[in-house]
């Protein structure tokens, strides 16, 4: 145990004094602060839009909730997910059941957004998902093979140290130093959230935020372990880097996007517009007679859309980035499951209203416990990747020629 502690300490000291870690810390700090400042501005803009929409409604509209929008979620500053898209003002027309399902999004609701659609939104999840994951592998790709190249590995192994202990110490030491380099950035970001932004955060939000941070650490560990694994497979740091970059590019840049696109191709869905026309063709007789039939058609259509979404999610989950994005956006209440829940609530409310059972549209967000439950699959996947990669690194290191 003492030996393990000594090894971890040595690793920590070595890492924290290296240029790479200092650079990572500075970059993290700069990126996280810039991101939170810009995303807070974005949130304020969206909240202003929402407030105006609500205050702008006539009494009749407000009473009957014919115009509505999803309130922007405070944690969208960390993981924006689908919050902006779902927050666009929508309208339910009297003839809605005969047209596109559930509601019609105002044609001008996305005005001024184009500039942001050309690139990815740089929220905290983006920074961790792409930038820091790249840094994590960059910090760990030379852990074993680098020491072999400098001949310190054989020197180290001439002492009575078990290989598993050494590997564990390197893994633990390296990862802790990565976390240390991240901590100032995260703390400053949270300080900004509480002190300088006027974003209303309640206890539940803090619990969710804590969950997102924990997820981020688990996610980064995957890439750190991937780097370690690669460094136990090859004997030269340069080869390790090339290999690990290849895996990173496929895993993070390619797989999630290709997974979603493949699902679109395999389970195509009709656009809302042409589906609306199809419904028009079906209609005969009075509106009330066919209402239920039209709603059944809507339900089938929504089921098809959800099936495509599910397939895309499952295919893209081969990449830890997708799991991380889904899980963190679910915790931030900006995820796909929140969008589906919102859609369902509006649909149910509208149908009840049309059946003469009037009530005010009150949108309920998913409770914290359920959000945590919803992201369990992704969390298990992330943990499994960690276990698999560490086991791989362990087996490879046991067979590694340290000379």
């Amino acid at each position, binding site marked *: 145990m003492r030996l393990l502690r000594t090894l971890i300490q040595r690793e920590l000291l070595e890492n924290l004094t290296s240029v790479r870690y200092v650079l990572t810390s500075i970059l993290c700090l700069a*990126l996280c602060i810039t991101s939170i400042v810009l995303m807070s501005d974005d949130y304020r803009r969206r909240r202003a839009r929402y407030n105006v929409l609500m205050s702008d409604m006539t009494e009749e509209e407000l009473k009957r909730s014919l115009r509505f929008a999803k309130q922007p979620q405070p944690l969208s500053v960390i993981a924006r997910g689908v919050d902006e898209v779902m927050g666009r003002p929508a309208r339910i027309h009297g003839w809605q059941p005969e047209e596109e399902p559930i509601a019609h999004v105002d044609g001008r*609701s996305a005005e001024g957004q184009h500039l942001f659609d*050309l*690139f990815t939104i740089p929220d905290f999840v983006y920074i961790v998902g*792409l930038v820091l994951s790249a840094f994590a592998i960059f910090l760990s790709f030379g852990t074993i093979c680098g020491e072999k190249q400098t001949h310190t590995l054989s020197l180290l192994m001439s002492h009575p140290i078990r290989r598993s202990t050494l590997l564990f110490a390197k893994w633990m030491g390296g990862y802790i130093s990565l976390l240390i380099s991240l901590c100032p950035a995260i703390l400053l970001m949270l300080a900004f959230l509480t002190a300088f932004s006027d974003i209303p955060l309640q206890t539940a939000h803090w619990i969710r935020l804590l969950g997102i941070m924990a997820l981020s650490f688990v996610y980064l560990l995957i890439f750190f372990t991937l780097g370690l694994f690669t460094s136990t497979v090859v004997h030269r740091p340069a080869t390790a880097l*090339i290999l690990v970059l290849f895996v990173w590019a496929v895993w993070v840049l390619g797989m999630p996007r290709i997974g979603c696109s493949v699902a679109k191709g395999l389970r195509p869905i009709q656009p*809302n517009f042409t589906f609306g026309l199809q419904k028009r063709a079906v209609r005969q007789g009075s509106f009330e007679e066919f209402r239920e039939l039209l709603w059944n058609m809507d339900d089938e259509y929504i089921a098809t859309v959800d099936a495509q979404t599910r397939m895309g999610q499952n295919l893209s989950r081969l990449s830890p980035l997708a799991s991380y994005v889904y899980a963190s956006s679910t915790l931030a209440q900006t995820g796909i499951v929140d969008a589906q829940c919102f859609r369902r609530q509006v649909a149910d409310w509208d149908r009840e209203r049309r059946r003469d059972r009037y009530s005010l549209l009150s949108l309920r967000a998913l409770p914290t416990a359920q959000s945590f439950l919803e992201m369990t699959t992704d969390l298990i996947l992330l943990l499994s990747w960690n276990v698999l990669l560490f086991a791989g690194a362990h087996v490879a290191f046991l067979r590694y020629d340290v000379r």
Partner: protein
Amino acid sequence: MLWTLVRKEIFGQLLNVRFYISFALACLFLVPATYILANDYGWMHTEYGPYLTEGLYNPWGLERFWVNRQIPPLRVLATGLDESLTLRSHNTVSDGPDFGESQFVHNPLSDILPHLDFVFFVNMVGSLLAFAFTYDAVSGERQRGILRLTMANSISRAVLILSKFLGSYLSFVISLLPALIGVVLVLSVHPDVGFGVSDWKATLWLFVLALLNIGVFVMLGIFASCVTREPKTTLTALMTIWVLLVLVVPNFSPFLAAKLHPIPALHQVHERIKSLSSSRDDEVRKEQEEYVKAHGGDHGSMSQQEKDEHGAIWLEYRMNLQVKELTQVWEAFFNEMEAQAKLARYLSLISPSAITTYLASDLSHTGIESEHAFRFAIIRFRREFAANLTRYMQQTGDKTKLWFVDNKLAPAFVLPRPTISQVISTHLPQFIVLVLYGFLCFCGAQITFIRSAI
């Protein structure tokens, strides 16, 4: 001597694992991504059918009509704004135009993880691979002592750096070549992609742009390799540069532009429109009331013709208000948007990746420029349409065309589609900036290498 060195460099790269990884990545990403996007393009054509035939579409002869544009064929290579690109604008004579189409029920995955396209590959993977090809070009040889041996021959340092650049660049391009050929094959064989001559020309320019972008990153890699003494340090520097140029600057610049040049929020535009129309609305309503009084005082007991005329007062007023004052408000808003986009472009000029993204989307007509062009074309169309309709009503007295849209009165919809040479000449400064980056890195590498000890 130069070509001997280049050949040596190419052979060295060909025997290295990174060449095969680059080849594998290009084949793995580029060909399937293009195929998927080609299928998507075909699917859109099948699904929307006539609703995306360029020009006016008025299916029922009623008051609603759409003004459409073609799906840009080069979307299969550069998705640009992707689903946010307006393809159809919804209108009535008295209302609209509405741009953009968000569907309430849709697959939200595309909002989180957009398509992988050629431009994404070049920007993200291409730049990363370019660094992988060059990070040890000088510092690695210096560490292994090969550089000293090479310089013992009568080779000028400038030639050596040039050969390093050419060798790395050419070998990288060779590793991408099979995938590029695959992309061209998909584009020419896929039944849904019917590229015309101009589309092929644009594709060629996209390839040139990609090669230019890759060239800048290769040069940057060699420059960093000259500046540093160990490959490990080169890598540290290059990874940091890559993160900043590829992941940070392009994505942060639109938000920074929004902060530096805020545009009015949508609700402020709506308020302005509301205040403009509310004062005039009352006058027209009074006019309508007077019309009812003059025709018996009860709207319900009026004849159909009188009812139509009564309705026409409102619709004609709305049509004129829409194409004059209200459109001016929207035009001012769009101009502000354009100015903000321009600022974002300027801010992102420091990143070759951002330049490539903007240029590629403009070349493919899937970017912000194309979106603005469509909007202004619709505004012009609406103005001409209103003028034609007013003229017709003055000549015939028939006002029913206000709610039964007559296609004959609609002008031809003209969406200005600049030719490739026009796009290139408009964006020449950006191309020049890319070339300049490459040149500066080359000069930097030369100067550093001349001053450095072997």
